[in-house]
């Protein structure tokens, strides 16, 4: 509680121009600014910095988020692969289309946290995460917002130290700080809303 108040105080001091909001109102206020389209697609650039690595790892690709279905995260270069995350499973395939890793939520509920966090982050819907993270942040200008998620339960804390997000009607930037000290920055490029998946995307959700 102390920490949350402190963060809120810092946010208020640093951004006098922006209107500080109570933490309880924030997710709702941010949700109001985000589009609620059934499908969001776009490209991404991901930069990972790993402890012990002299160079960052930069990758490009595209993604599709479908409401109620999950996420397909397709890395195009430098090493192609795809990751499918749905509410009840997680499947990673290599360039050859072969499954490299697979987990089911009913056998491994810890995976549920990973999957739900990822879907929530990309859709900007944090209500499902409020039981595992405390949320602070502010609204920026007439359309923008920034949020910081700090894990409150042991399972989430084992994965993430902190998550920073910002955006407008779409989530634009995500910064994950992992408990191990590694960090990942994802920039969404040209996100766009759609009413339904196209045939090719539909196949990738199978």
């Amino acid at each position, binding site marked *: 509680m102390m920490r949350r108040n402190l963060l809120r105080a810092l946010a208020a001091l640093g951004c006098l121009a922006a209107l500080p909001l109570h933490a309880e109102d924030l997710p709702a206020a941010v949700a109001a600014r985000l589009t609620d389209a059934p499908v969001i697609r776009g490209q991404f650039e991901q930069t990972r910095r790993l*402890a012990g*690595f*002299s160079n960052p790892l930069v*990758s490009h690709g595209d993604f599709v988020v479908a409401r109620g279905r999950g996420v397909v*995260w397709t890395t195009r270069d430098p090493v192609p692969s795809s990751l499918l995350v749905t509410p009840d499973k997680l499947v*990673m395939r290599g360039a050859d289309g072969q499954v490299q890793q697979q987990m089911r939520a009913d056998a491994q509920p*810890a995976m549920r946290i990973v999957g739900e966090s990822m879907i929530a982050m990309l859709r900007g819907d944090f209500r499902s995460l409020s039981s595992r993270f405390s949320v602070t942040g502010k609204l920026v200008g007439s359309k923008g917002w920034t949020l910081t998620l700090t894990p409150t339960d042991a399972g989430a804390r084992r994965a993430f130290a902190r998550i920073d997000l910002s955006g407008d009607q779409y989530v634009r930037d995500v910064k994950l700080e992992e408990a*191990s000290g590694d960090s990942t920055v994802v920039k969404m490029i040209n996100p766009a809303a759609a009413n339904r998946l196209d045939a090719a995307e539909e196949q990738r959700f199978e």
Partner: protein
Amino acid sequence: MQGALTRRDRVLAIAWLLLVIAVAVHQLQFWRASRIDTDVMALLPTSARTATADRVLRQLGEGVSREVVVLVGADDWAHTRAAAERFRQSIGPANPLLQPQDKLGAFDFDAALAFYRPWRDRLLTDAQRQQLASESPDALARQALTRLYQFSMGPQLTEWAADPLGLWQQWWLDRAAATRVRERDGMATVTGDGKDWIVLTFRTARSGFSANGNTDYGDLLGQAERAARHGAGGDSAVRVIMAGIPLHAEAAASQANWEMNVIGWGSLAAVLLLVWIAFRSLRPILLVGLSLLIGTAMAISATAMVFGRVHLIALVFGASLMGVAEDFGIHYFVTRQAMPRATPPSVMRFLLPGLSLALLTSVMAYLALGIAPFPGLRQMALFSAVGLTGAFLTVAFWFPLLDRGTPRQTRLSTWLAESLARWPQVHNDRRTWMALGLLGLFIAGGVWQVRVVDDVRQLQSSPPALIEAQRTIGRLLGTPSPAQFVLVRGATPDEVLAREEAVKASLAGTRDRHAFGGFVAISDWVPSAARQRADAALADRQEAAVRERVARALGGTIAAPPAAPAGAGLTLQAWLTHPVSDTLRHLWLDREGHGYASVMLLRGLDNAAEIPAIAATVRQVPGAEWVDRVADFSSLLHHYRVLMSWLLLAGAGVVGLLLAWRYGLSGWRALVPTLLAAAFSVAVLGWLQVPLQLFSILALALLLGVGVDYGIFLLEHPGDGVSWTAIVLGAASTLLAFGLLALSSTPALHAFGMTMLSGVGAVWVLSPWFRPAAR
């Protein structure tokens, strides 16, 4: 005929009084201490060969003997949570009977990670070992790069360089397969049968159960179940399943309490009613009742002193003794009626030789129950023998002293005595042969349908619903059965671990076709030293190659991982002394004979048809032994059923020879009714679909002892109405007592009661039919 009490009579009566007082004192202490067993295991024999297996069973049972497990399930997570909360609220956080346990919080995952971290490279799953051995470093490096460029998933348990292939996470996921219970929102959960379940664990405050037949735990849990199912926002889809040893013990105690009361007091009341009708006087009722009470009290005290504890099944069986031990008192009073002018002491002296002989044969028949080395049967044998003797000595020592009245004739006893003459008799005529033919058809038809069952569960009296709940919970939680396991022995702890690995390898194929789910074994948590060395060598070589190739592909440098600690690797000793082993430590038996031993449990072994193949495979691994105590006990029951059947035939032969020696050719008249009655009672079991088992055979042995007596009395005094009256009264109360025993819900006692009921009934009808012509 000498009619007065002698000095010796008085001394004996006073000595008997002192003994009765001592027993009364012992009884008070016994019922206060409540040393009563309900566990089926306590009925079964143990031997040097099975001592280890029995120690394992006890060790496995100890941890859970006071645990009640409750599963609350609904169609979705939100409803499940609400229902489980209602259940917990109903019990309350500080209930004097049931204390909630937090098993999940007891496992500290971060401490476990820290414990295993130094030996990460020595811990591989079977699939990982195979993959590392078969795939090229290039292919492995490509997979590592793929993962590096993908979205970051889940917790990284180490820095990348220490585990570039991400092997450790999968190793932990494989460990988690030891149980189907998972954490969700801080609660222990399991999914199955289309529902999300929350697992609640409680610990009972009392170690024993109440002998008064109350069901305190059952009532409390039943109330909580109603709260969970119908509470605010009640939910018809909510299911609650409860299991645990305390519930079985409580159900058995309350059931046995009811049965003891019905059988014991029921047959006592019936005996006293018969005595009243036959003698129409208060004194016989009081005296016969007194002899029965003293006999029963002595039986309980003697059993408690010899065995330390008394099993419920012995008490329930013993309650039927009321219907047998009354014979002595009834004989005495029937004879008094017939000899109204003789004094009580002289009647007793006249009867004593015959009664002693009857006591001797009955005690011998009961003691024959104890031939099989089952502690339960031996308790029943001792209980019955002492009970009969106690009742007999009360009659012999006290009745002449306490019985002062003049007996009177009653209409019933006169009518009974005269009824013998009207009973049909066998002759070489058409009617007799037709009746025998019909009887033969009934016997043949029944015997044809007899099913033989040698299942140890026949001794189990738990209600079927409770057994079903136990089974469902075991299936949902994936708990291994404690009755079947692999016992692994070795000269050193490390040899035990290596042999466990050999067992797992030999059963890998069986497991892959889903004959069972997997193992719960210590070697899953502490691999043998050789396995650790081999895995570390394999992992270190491939990981170094992967690190080198990935660094080259990325065009930069990657910091070297922390050096592995030098030394012996993970030892069993380190694991046993760390809290991480808390939930599995009981599988390690430590020193066993000349070496060490451990237990491996099998999960999900639901199909009994798979067991013989698994057992055969296990036996081929040196040092490994397949233990199946259920099958052991069942084969023991089979062995003694066959043995007792032969003894029964031999006994019938001996009785036949004795009768021939005493009565010559007409001795068949005493033997044939009993043999026909035995066949008849077996046929009744067949017609009623009651399985034939060891207990039915034991009942037949008892029937041989009791039934031949009726024939002997009728041969000794042809046409004598007095002994016939005594037989009718004795048989009627015996029938009632065993008829009530047949109501028992313990299958073994039910079969015993059924066999005796039909057998004694048949002997009663058949004996006078075969009687010799009156002289």
